[in-house]
């Protein structure tokens, strides 16, 4: 007798734990192996990496439906909220540990240095999306909810640019993120054009 995994019942709890694994791994390393000579930089890089990865995974839900017919849409909210969770870790590492509330120098950083500006903007723009992720808010906002949450495309762009602009010479890794983002958005554009064309020809046939 095959043991069947009850996806409906355990899917979300399992995903929840999976999304926590990067943080648990970081904590494990911090306690048992150390985070190297510059732990603050390590935490910043690590939480930044996982923010971008989760953001791209969240944005892969729709393309996966379009291309493979697999719908993971009921997990998308959790993926999005974990993206927000990791960006919060990233932000508070910067605010508390890296700069120890040196607000003056952080403000200067945000204003003067474009990679900080775009990163900060992406973080701030994610806040309303996280706040409006509840069922009640979805209901309350109606059509506007979708409009608001389309901001995620701009946020993703700001996020990968933030990474691209901070590297010194080797931009291979940030360019991989850029390429994935372009591909994910490309699938959406391709799908919408295809649908429009289909709709137009259907109308043409009807008249």
């Amino acid at each position, binding site marked *: 007798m095959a043991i069947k995994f009850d996806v409906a019942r355990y899917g979300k709890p399992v995903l929840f734990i999976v999304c926590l694994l990067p943080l648990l791994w970081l904590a494990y390393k911090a306690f048992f192996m150390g985070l190297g*000579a510059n732990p603050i930089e390590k935490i910043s890089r690590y939480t930044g990496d996982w923010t971008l990865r989760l953001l791209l995974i969240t944005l892969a839900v729709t393309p996966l439906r379009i291309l493979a017919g697999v719908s993971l849409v009921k997990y998308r909210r959790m993926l999005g909220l974990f993206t927000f969770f990791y960006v919060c870790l990233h932000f508070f590492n910067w605010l508390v540990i890296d*700069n120890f509330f040196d607000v003056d120098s952080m403000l200067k*950083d945000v204003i003067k240095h474009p990679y900080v500006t775009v990163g900060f903007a992406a973080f701030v723009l994610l806040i309303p999306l996280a706040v409006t992720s509840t069922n009640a808010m979805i209901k309350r906002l109606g059509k506007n909810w979708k409009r608001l949450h389309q901001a995620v495309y701009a946020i993703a762009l700001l996020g990968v640019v933030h990474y691209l602009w901070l590297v010194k010479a*080797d931009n291979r890794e940030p360019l991989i993120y850029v390429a994935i983002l372009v591909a994910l958005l490309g699938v959406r554009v391709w799908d919408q054009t295809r649908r429009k064309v289909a709709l137009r020809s259907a109308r043409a046939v009807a008249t």
Partner: protein
Amino acid sequence: MLIRVRKASEVKPSEITARRVYEARRNFLKIATGAALSAAGVSLFGVPAAHAGTKLSNLGKSRYSTTEPVNSLQDITSYNNFYEFGVEKEEPAQMAKNFVTTPWSIAVEGEVAKPAVYQLEDFIKPHALEERIYRLRCVEAWSMVIPWVGIPLADIIKRLQPTSKAKYVEFVTLHDPARMPGQKRSVLPWPYREGLRMDEAMHPLAILAVGLYGEVLPNQNGAPIRLVVPWKYGFKNIKSIVKLRFVEQQPATTWAVQGPREYGFFANVNPDVDHPRWTQSKERRIGEFLKRKTLKFNGYEEEVASLYAGMDLAKFY
């Protein structure tokens, strides 16, 4: 029509060893003999073979050493910017593990009395080794305190007798992607090049380092010989040097070529001149929690400021 008649004794083109093959063979012989000799604890010159961990004795002290607490050997050898062995900080310690630095030769070229190729041992032998505990400030806004062992660059330059035409000295790192795997990707225009104006090179703070913590320099820190100019950003401190060239014109230096808007020839530590993408006013000393203020010329203002009298340091960054 000219027909070339081959003499019976002449070597046929097919019998000439291809350049690639003989170079590989030579390299193999070099590495094999070097490794064999260093394994036996000797070098071609009868002095102990230089590999990391070998104790260096009779080190002189220097008045230029700082009394600040020194960073741990672990920190200094596990957090390196040495793109020839990978772009991540932890990579050089791993990737440079098997880097063979014996034998090692240094070519001295250009405006100099006797251009020559020196074996490293001969290059160093005439000089006494000194310990120099210096601050190192990376352009990425972190810093360390490092107990180098080295020789004043001025002493070496005097011995090499540059001509009056020599206005700058250019340094070149080994270019050998087989031994420096990071060079297989063109992250930077290889080989790495650096340069100093003659008066900078002759300054008593400038040294060529061959050791760290009283021992032979670990590979990931630029073995077997590297430049240390503590009032400049870390990237000026070129590693694994194979060539010194004395020249009349200011040489093109790697990071200034890579990003001329962000990195200049002088690269003096300066809290008032920001990197276009981040501030240089503060730094994190490795091992400390709160950032500290960056000091002009990395705290060596008293010693070196006169070198730049009258220069606009915002323009000549």
